[in-house]
Structures are given as structure tokens and as C-alpha cells.
């Protein structure tokens, strides 16, 4: 039993009926397919920005050995911790306040720096590409000039 993108092998379940209900619910909420693409594109762009193009194994990609993940300098998993088993709840509250404050002030600046790093990396890759293209042009012109002289 197959209906659009839904598959239920159990013959006692009416897939077409479920699919119809889903269509009705979506129509009722007024979600058009176009709208659902926005978060998907956002996720794809963010992936390219933070992790990079997974297929970038070209000579150019290897020329600039900085990976997009290297640009990210935000220590998201770091928490201030200390293990002095006194003061109990006060200790926990103080620790939480310090962690929250550090995240609020420091992380905002570091996020900006990480974004800047990614932009620099993109610009560097662009320049490397342009450089390779210009080199090719120079070589081609040189070749043409030599054959003219020859």
C-alpha cells in the first residue's frame, strides 16, 4: 500500500484515508509547499557556512587547508565547573549565574568573530579561485605569444 510519500504495510490501515486527512489538515492550516522550503534552505546554507561543501576535494579546496569548522571558535560545550561539596544549592545557583553571564556577553562576541572567520575563508577561497583562473589566462597568453614569435 503506497500513497504519495506514505507507506504502511499493515493491510488493516487505510493509507489513502490517512493521506487524505493529512492533505486536509495542511490545507486547513494554509501551508503552501513554498513556505516549507524556507527552513530547509536555511539549514542547507547553515551547513555550507559551518561545515562546508562536503564535495570540496578539489586541488583548490586542498590549497586552503582551513576548514569551515576551524572558523567556529565558540566554546559551546564549555561550562565553568568546580567540585567543592559545600554550600550546596548556593553553589549551584552561583555557578549557573556565572555560566549564563559568560554565555550572554562572551558568546555574542565570539559568534560575531566566527561569522567573520567564515566570511574571510569564503573570500580567501574566492581569491584562490580567481588566482588560478588568472594563472591559466597568463599561461594561455604566454603560449599564444610564443607561437606568434616562433
Amino acid at each position: 500500500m503506497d500513497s504519495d510519500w506514505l507507506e504502511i504495510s499493515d493491510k488493516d490501515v487505510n493509507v489513502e484515508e490517512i493521506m487524505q486527512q493529512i492533505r486536509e489538515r495542511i490545507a486547513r492550516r494554509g501551508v503552501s509547499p513554498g513556505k516549507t522550503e524556507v527552513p530547509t534552505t536555511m539549514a542547507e546554507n547553515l551547513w555550507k557556512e559551518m561545515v562546508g561543501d562536503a564535495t570540496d576535494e578539489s586541488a583548490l579546496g586542498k590549497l586552503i587547508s582551513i576548514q569551515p569548522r576551524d572558523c567556529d571558535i565558540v566554546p559551546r560545550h564549555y561550562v565553568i565547573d568546580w567540585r567543592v561539596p559545600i554550600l550546596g544549592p548556593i553553589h549551584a545557583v552561583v555557578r549557573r549565574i556565572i555560566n549564563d553571564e559568560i554565555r550572554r556577553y562572551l558568546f555574542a562576541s565570539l559568534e560575531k568573530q566566527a561569522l567573520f572567520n567564515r566570511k574571510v575563508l569564503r573570500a580567501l577561497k574566492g581569491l584562490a579561485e580567481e588566482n588560478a583562473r588568472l594563472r591559466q589566462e597568463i599561461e594561455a597568453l604566454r603560449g599564444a605569444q610564443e607561437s606568434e614569435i616562433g
Partner: protein
Amino acid sequence: MQIHQFHPTVAYGNAIGDQVLSLQRLLRHLGYSSEIFCEQLPLHFQGRTRRIAQYSHYSSPANILLLHFSLGYSPAVLSWLEQVPDRKVVVYHNITPHVYFNGINDVYRQAAEVGREQLDRLSALTEAGWGDSTFNCQELVERGWTRLGVLPIIFDPQRYRVRPERQVLQRWQGGVNILFVGRVSPNKRFEDLILTVYYVKRLVRPEARLLLVGSWRGMEPYLDFLQALIERLGLSDVFFAGHVSTAQLVAYYRCASVYLSMSEHEGFGVPLVESMYFGVPIVAYKAAAVPETLGDSSILVTAKDYAGTAELIGLLIEDASLRDQIVARQRERFQDFLPDRVEGRLRELLYSLGNGVEK
């Protein structure tokens, strides 16, 4: 006759480690002498596992040595295997394609690549290849194996008969909880889970939560990406639980309203069977071995229609009769992975090897 097993290391709560231990129980139950050999002796299994250096005391051309293969062997193990005269069978648990680790973890990426290359070498060393699923066996066919068999992962309910952790229950019980269990890894497509839950919260149930249970060790760049995505979507109620104990895992299943998998690469999918056992309705993306593990149970989605899947989850939560139907079929399916069922399959596979293996 002796049937021994080898895996580089064995750990509790790890699908392969559990399979090695369960298989040992089955083999002994079938009357075979069976030991587990490891390259690195695991701390918690002293006495239950032996070093490969000790294998010379057991080795014989009449023995069968089951080689569990998931991420590749060290060169030392490969040369050891070349010298061992025993009959060998590879038990393939699948290797995540290396492309998923591009830009995330170079060590994993390289290990996955090397592991696949080693498969070619192993095909010449072993007389048969067993996979957890037909999907895994298909890869063995491509790598040159001709004698194949499917030996599913053994699901032992005994392992889950623990008291669910109270703290987890207190925190999450009640409300709409969408659960996924698995290592935080790009092949499991956590971003698709997040996007689906974005629509669940926006369209269907604003109070819904996404509970993600599994370790992210070695996958920090991917976790950073996921957290940044959550932030950009302005999404709240997405929780990364990390690695959990069995008592915590049981509690998470007890709190779950729906189990959602958008994974693109699974060699079997133990959490799917766990969800069947705990009566959590499953919605899963149809990819790799997932449809095979689910059999004729659960709900498969063949496209990543996030809004549509969100509505489907809404239906499952609201329509009790639909949920009961799905769960009832899942309960039937999960029986296929119980030790006594797999024991029959194991007996057949051993018999197919011939030469003294009795039915």
C-alpha cells in the same frame, strides 16, 4: 566443535557488543564451546573476554571464528587473521559511508574508508558472510562474497527490565515527546528531525518536545551546526541527552509519544526494535535497512515532506485507534528478534556451512 567470536573490543549498551554477548549465549545454548576474543580487553568484561594472543590455545582448522566487522581492523589483527587456520565467517554490521564525515571528523572518515577497503581483503580470508540485514548482505555481494546469510540483531528484553530512572520520568512524562535514539552523526540526519519538529510545533502541537538520546563524542562540529540551526529557527524544546544509562534509556522510551527516524544510513537500527518493544509508534524515513527492520509494521515516509510528516505525527498523537493499530503490529514484529527466533536462524546458518556442523 568450537565456535568463537572476534571483535576489536566489546562494550555494554553498544549494539555490536550486545550482539556478541547474546550470540555467545545462543552458541553455548546450542552446545558449542564459545569464547569472545578482543584486541583491546574491555575493562568491564574481564573474565568474559580474552586477548587474541590467547587464541593460539583454542585455534584449530575445525573451529569456526566469527569476525564481527563494523569500523575496520588494525593491521596487526589483519595479519593475525591471515595466520589463523580456523574457518572464518565475517559478521558484517555495516560501515557508515565516509562522505558523511566530510568536514566533521577526519579520523572517522579515514577509518570508514579503510574499513571498506579491508572488506575486500576479508572476502578472501572468509568462507561466508553474514549480515544483520539483507541491506548489509548486499554490500557483501558487491565485495565478492558468494555464501551469504542474514543474522538479525538479537533483542533480549531482559536487558530492559530495569527500573526507569525517576529523574527522567519526572522531567518528561506527560506532554508530547518526539524521541530519537542514536549517536549524533550526520548519516542520522538530525537536521531533518529538527525541521520536522519545527513544523510539529508551528502547525500541530506547540508544546511538543524533541528528545535526542545519544552520544556526540567526536561529532562536536555537527552538534554545533545543529545547535546553530535550532537557534536560527528560534526553536525551543529540543534536548540533547547525550549518552545515557539503560535505566535512563528505558525512562525516555516510557515518556515518548512518537519515535521519529529520518536516518539515511542504518545497517539494522536497534532503537527501532526498542521502540517496538516499548510500544512507541514509529515514523521512519524509508532508507537503507530501516524498512527491512520494521517489516510490515510502523509508518514509513518516502520523501522528506516536513510539514506533511508533522501532520502525520499529529494524527498519531490524536487518533488513539490508529496509534493502537500501529503499536499492535510493531509488537508482533519485534518477536522476530527475540533470542529463540534468532537461535533458529543461527542454527540454519551454521548448518549451511556444512562440514560437521549439525542441524
